[in-house]
Structure formats: C-alpha cells, structure tokens
C-alpha cells in the first residue's frame, strides 16, 4: 500500500467509489436536476426558459384556459399518457409471449450451442434502431413483404392496411426490445435445476402444471426484470410511434419532443419528463419492496 492513500477504511472506501459517484453525478443527477428546475420555470416565447418560478407547467398537465380564460379540466394530456401506458403494456406482453419460449428453448440446448443462440439474439442491436424500424415499413407496408405474396396468390385484393396503426407500433416496439426480455429470462432459467422438473413429473404433474407451478415461479425474477427493461423504454418510445404509427396519435415521447421543438415550451416538456420519471421510479420502488418481502418470506420458510 502506498502512503498517499487515506488512513481510515471509510475514506478509502469513498475514494474507491469516487469514480462511480462522479459518473452518476455528471451523467444522471445533474441532467435530472436541470430538468427538475426547468419544469418550475416560465417558458421563453422562442425556446429556452425565463428565470421566473412558476407551477404553470404542472397545472397544464391537467387544466387549460378556455376561450373565456377560465381554468377548466383538460383530459388531453392524460389521454396521451394513458395511451402510452396501454401500448407499452401491450408491447411488454407481446415480448413476454414471444421471449419466454425463446429463452426456454435456448436453455434446453446443449451448453456449447447456447452461447451461439444468445449471440444471435443480440445481433439486431448492432444495427441502428432507426434503420431496423425502417425495415418494418417495407415488411408491413402496402405491397410489402407480407402483402405482395398474398396479393399474387389472390388471397387479398386490396391492402391489409397494417402500417400506420397501433398494431404496427406494438410490433415495432416488440421487435426493438425483445432481446431485453429474452436475456434476463434466459439468465434465470439457466440456473434452473432441471431435476426439479423430473421430480414434478414423478409426482404426476403434467407439463402445464410443471410449467405453472415449478418453472415460472422459479424464473419470476428474470421475467419481472425483463418486463421492466422492456416497459420503461417503450413508454418513452419515439421512433416506432412516429415511423410505424405515422405520428397520428401523440405519444408521451413525441409529446415531450413537440414541447422542445414546435411548441417551444421547455418547462412543460420538462414537467412531462418528470411525470414519466416519477411513474418509473414509483413502479421500481414497488418492485424492489415486493422482491425484498419475498426474499424475507423465503428466508423464514
């Protein structure tokens, strides 16, 4: 040990952790504090903020001034938030439905093949998200990869009109974030003791019962982690709603972008981001609490 290190163990611990504190501080806390402060200021008419404190941005989330300058309840923004939640839940469920069997299948492969399959799952991440989303326009579009063969075979005459719909957004989101579902589920399934499945079958459990009572409870942490990892980026998603949904219905991500560009209302954009952030933090706290409780209960048993 060199002599310039602090003597006490606690100062040493601080010094050792300093790089991570600095990274968290610069890349996470400072931007968040800026957002938080901006959300309590007044907008400058041409972008930026005025250094005048105001709660207007938060009032605007729920109320608006009508033509007679009366403050009335405005469900518009809440509708947008709700729509984003619905679509994110839909995409998360789709990811789970597709991702769980994939992860399970990979787990059942011989060990030397598993890494190769996992590697295949991560390949889409090597390409820019924008380009991958564009590819879906060609797949789902009018006269695209899906429609053209059906038209040639005479199964359909007109277009299926798959593009520019909520379904297209959900497909795009599912595709984009599927690896984030597969990987954590695989991580927890990999640790699964397959002798337990044999035991279940010895005790006359059929395949479904084994799945519901043994496999799923044991890989629940992976499933929950996967769902959170998919849900959070979906709710702020911006590319898929714009390109595949045609931007026809504003989503939370597009609404925030609109505030910082056309609408030039930075405080309101910041307030929306804070709302999004607190929703995510609250759900994470609930998850952490539930996980703790479960760990305690299992410990007691």
């Amino acid at each position, binding site marked *: 040990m060199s002599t310039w290190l602090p003597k006490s163990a606690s100062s040493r611990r601080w010094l050792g952790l300093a790089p991570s504190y600095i990274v968290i501080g610069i890349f996470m806390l400072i931007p968040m504090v800026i957002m938080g402060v901006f959300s309590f200021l007044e907008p*400058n*008419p*041409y*972008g*930026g903020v005025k250094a005048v404190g105001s709660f207007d941005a938060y009032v605007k989330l729920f109320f*608006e001034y009508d*033509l007679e300058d009366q403050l009335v309840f405005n469900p*518009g*923004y809440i*509708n*947008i938030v709700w729509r984003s939640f619905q679509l994110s839940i839909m995409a998360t469920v789709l990811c789970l439905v597709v991702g769980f069997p994939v992860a399970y299948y990979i787990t059942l492969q011989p060990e030397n093949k598993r890494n190769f399959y996992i590697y295949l799952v991560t390949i889409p991440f090597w390409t820019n998200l*924008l*380009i991958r989303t*564009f590819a879906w326009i060609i797949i789902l*579009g*009018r*006269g*695209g990869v899906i429609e053209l063969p059906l038209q040639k075979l005479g199964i359909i005459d007109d*277009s299926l*009109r798959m*593009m*520019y719909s909520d379904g297209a957004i959900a497909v795009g989101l599912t595709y984009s974030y599927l690896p984030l579902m597969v990987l954590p589920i695989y991580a927890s399934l990999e640790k699964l003791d397959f002798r337990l499945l044999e035991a279940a079958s010895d005790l006359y459990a059929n395949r479904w019962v084994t799945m519901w009572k043994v496999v799923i409870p044991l890989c629940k942490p992976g499933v929950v982690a996967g769902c959170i990892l998919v849900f959070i980026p979906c709710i702020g998603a911006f590319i898929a709603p*714009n390109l595949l949904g*045609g*931007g*026809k*219905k*504003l989503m939370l991500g597009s*609404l925030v972008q*609109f505030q*910082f*560009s*056309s*609408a*030039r*209302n930075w405080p309101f954009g910041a307030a929306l981001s804070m709302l999004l952030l607190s929703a995510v933090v609250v759900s994470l706290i609930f998850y952490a609490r539930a996980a703790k409780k479960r760990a305690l209960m299992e410990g007691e048993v």
Partner: protein
Amino acid sequence: MKYIASIFAAAAVALTGGLAKAGGELFIYNWTEYTPPELIEKFEKETGISVSLDTYDSNETLLAKLQAGATGYDLVVPSQNFVPILVGEGLIQKVAVHELPNYKNYKDEWRKPEWDPEQEYSSGWQWGTTSFSYNHELYSGKGESLAEFFEPSEEVRGRLSIFQTPDEVISLANIYLGTEFCSEDPKVMKKIQDMLLAQKDYVVALNSETMSDLLTSGEAIITNHWSGYNRLGRLAGAPITYAYPKEGVVGWFDSLVVPTSAKNVENARTFMNFMMDPVNMAMLTENQGYGDAVKGTEAYYSEEVKTAPEINPPKGLNVVFAPTCSPKAQALIDKVWTKVWQ
C-alpha cells in the same frame, strides 16, 4: 430514407473534410439532403477550407439547438420567419453581407428583404413553395384547389399525409380559408381546428421526410410536399405531380446566417460570397430544384431545370411568405395542433 442518405452524406463529408487543409475550417449546420457534396468539394478545392456538415430536420430543431447553447457551427440555414427570432434572441451575428464582392450578383427583388432589412445577416440559399402532391396514377383529381387537401374526397380516406409540424399546415389552411397568417383571434383558430379535425379522418400519417415514398407505394394518394423535394422524387421515378392550387401556396426563403458563437466568421463569409457566384448557385439549384436569388444562374441550368414544373410555377400563382408569429399566435397554433392530434 432521408436519415440514411444524410448519414452517408455526413460520413462522406466528414471523411473528405477530415484531411487537414491549409485554409482552416468551416462547420455548416444545414437541413438534411440540402447540401450537395460536389458543391462542398468545389469550395474546398478553391479555398483550401475544410468543411464539416451536420444536419437538422426543422427550423424548430435548429432554434432549440442554438437556444440550448450548441456551439461550433459557423453557418446555419433558417427559413425567413425564423431569421427575426434568431436576431431577437441574439443567436446570429451581423456579417455585412451587402459588402461581399459577389453581392452585385444578388437579384434585386431579394435584396434587403423584410426579415433582414439591411442585409446584414443573411444571404439566400434556396427558396420554394409548400403545397401538396398527388399520385397521378391513383388520384382522379387535378390538384386545382386546396379543398382537395383540406376537405378531401372519399377516395382519399385513410390515404392522406400531412407534415409533422404545424406551421406550414396552418399557413396553408389560412390561405385556403382566406384568413390572416399568425392570427391571434381564437375564433379564426377555432375554425382551422374544426377543419383539421374533420380532415383527420382522412389522414394516414404525419410525415415530413418520405412523402415521395408514401405516394409511390400508394400508402398515401395525397401528401403535403415541397416543390423541389417533389421534383427529386419525380426524377427518381415516383408517379407524382406537385399541385398549384388556385388559392395559392406557402412560400419560404432559406438563407445562410452566421451564429453568434461561430469561430470561423471569415470562412463563413467566404462561403456566402462563393454561393453568390452564379456558377456555384446554379450547381445548388440544379441539385435541389428550388429557386435561387442570384442573377445569371439561368445560363448554367440544364434543360431539365429550365422546364421543371416545380421550379417554374404557373404565371399569376399566389405565393404567400409566412411572417414571424407573435408568441400569442404561436401558442394558439400549438394549442390547435395538440387538440387535433392528442
């Protein structure tokens, strides 16, 4: 497709510009697909200045970026209605454009425009019009009236695309309804809102980038479009026609200006001067297909540009240039847009 093309363009410029050159540097921040690489190469060869290019997709993005304190750009290209805002916010600086040697080539009708009355800040890049286009193989109409866009016929249901940002859509609505631009009157804006809400049933997508693709695939039959961008799509084989409705079209004029934070002001002025040389400006117009503000460019135009309908609008066309909206009028525009698309 625009994104991909612009990534390649930026990469190409970055690669060529990466070589150290004697004349110093110039950082241009321009709209996507708005800077022909061959023009940049010519400038680099003649001056020894190495150019880097970065791109944006709307005036709003440019304004937000400069407001947020983005530095390092020597030239940016806002539209006419954003020039007074940038001046007012102190984001661009006076560079005495009227003293540049090639200013003698500047067309009289574009000298000292209302958005830059002393021609201290800006020199023209391209100007054009905003209207709508249609797929002439699929649409039975002729694009004669804005009614076809705002109150479309049944064949267009679910196959109409409009721009992603409100300003130009609402300006076109003003022309159609005969109301004043940047109205602060809630009644006028209510009328526009009702019209847009009725139009919404016909809209398939909000798009400001791939309109020609939408029309080619038949996903849309009518889209908002810019004149020169329509020409590029048409030349690439899209079966599209740019409409000149009888009510008129929205005009815009983009110009080069120098941000206050620019480090290479002299190089920026050299580029402005370079662009006022008719040979160079003709190169840009040939590539982009909008109008320019430099005398003598016609001599260098190809036959195609001389006759392109997008560049040569019909005589007597009503072109209205949007002014800068007051904050109150802008707030009403945003309110209408959020109400329609919420």
